[in-house]
């Protein structure tokens, strides 16, 4: 990434923060592991989706956390549909 990207969290209700690739990677990997994927497969899926999200956000100086989640879920859906389901619905369980 050439320049730092700000992530607007919860529509501005929480302070913005810099885009953190590790945070995205960990959340994607956790979603894969939660559907009992082997760790290697979870690692690969998370890394691939992270790359796709970084390509998507490279030209954008500011993005929202909802955008990141939506785009990541979209790419994860093609690689691992079950993990994508858990990733998308994580905040809609309660």
């Amino acid at each position, binding site marked *: 990434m050439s320049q730092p990207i700000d992530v607007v969290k919860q529509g501005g209700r929480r302070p913005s923060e810099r885009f953190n690739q590790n945070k995205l990677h960990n959340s994607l*990997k*956790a*979603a894969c*592991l*939660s*559907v*009992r994927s082997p*760790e290697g497969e979870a690692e690969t899926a998370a890394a691939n989706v992270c790359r796709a999200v970084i390509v998507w956000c490279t030209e954008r100086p500011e993005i929202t956390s909802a955008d990141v989640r939506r785009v990541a879920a979209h790419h994860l859906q093609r690689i691992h549909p*079950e*993990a994508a*389901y*858990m990733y*998308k*619905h*994580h*905040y*809609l*369980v*309660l």
Partner: protein
Amino acid sequence: MELLTSLVIVSVAALIHASFQLSISMLTLLSSHTIGSKRSHSHLLRLTNAFVAGVGVMTILLVSFTALVASNVFGTKIPSLAWVVLCGLLFGLGVSVWLFYYRKQGGTSLWVPRDVAKYLHDRTKATKNSGEAFGLGLSSVVAELLFVLAPVAVGAFALVSVPPLWQLVGIALYGLISLLPLLVVNGLIGSGRKLSQIQKWREDNKLFLQFIAGTGLFILGFYLYVAEVLAPVVSASAGSAL
């Protein structure tokens, strides 16, 4: 109220209690976070079992406490006015469940205010040992008190008129039946079933579960109104007319 009738009413009230979903949602989330953070299967089982135990203990405490209050206030015979109030509560909650229990968005989001849901979500995520999971189980029942109170009160009212030993049996029966869905989900998680399958089933069938819970409250309210409010009045009128 006869013993068998009391136990059947307790069972039906517990079944309605069992159809409420907050504890199951929290158990699913707890499992999701625990598996996602690469903790061992035995650790997962310890947490989920402690959670279920917490839900069971709080449910039994609630029924016992409500029965104690009812027996201290009314004795062994619940007055018709109390049954009328309880039936009104059941009808009102039945309609509320039909209309509001699930939010009109994807997933299995419940009626719970979003701030409370976020707090429960964060607490679930932060739960790492059995004691915390037990406490989380206790709080999940309290968080849904608004809906759970009516079936709990029905169970308690039905139990105050039976002999003490049968009261204990009734409380245990209520606790066991109300825990059945949690025990099933806990068993599925323990046996290695994918959470996505469980969550997908819950989402696909949420309208059916909502309909069953609301209708159950309505039917129980109608039965109690007829059996505990109308029938004594009709019997008394018929007796005085003879």
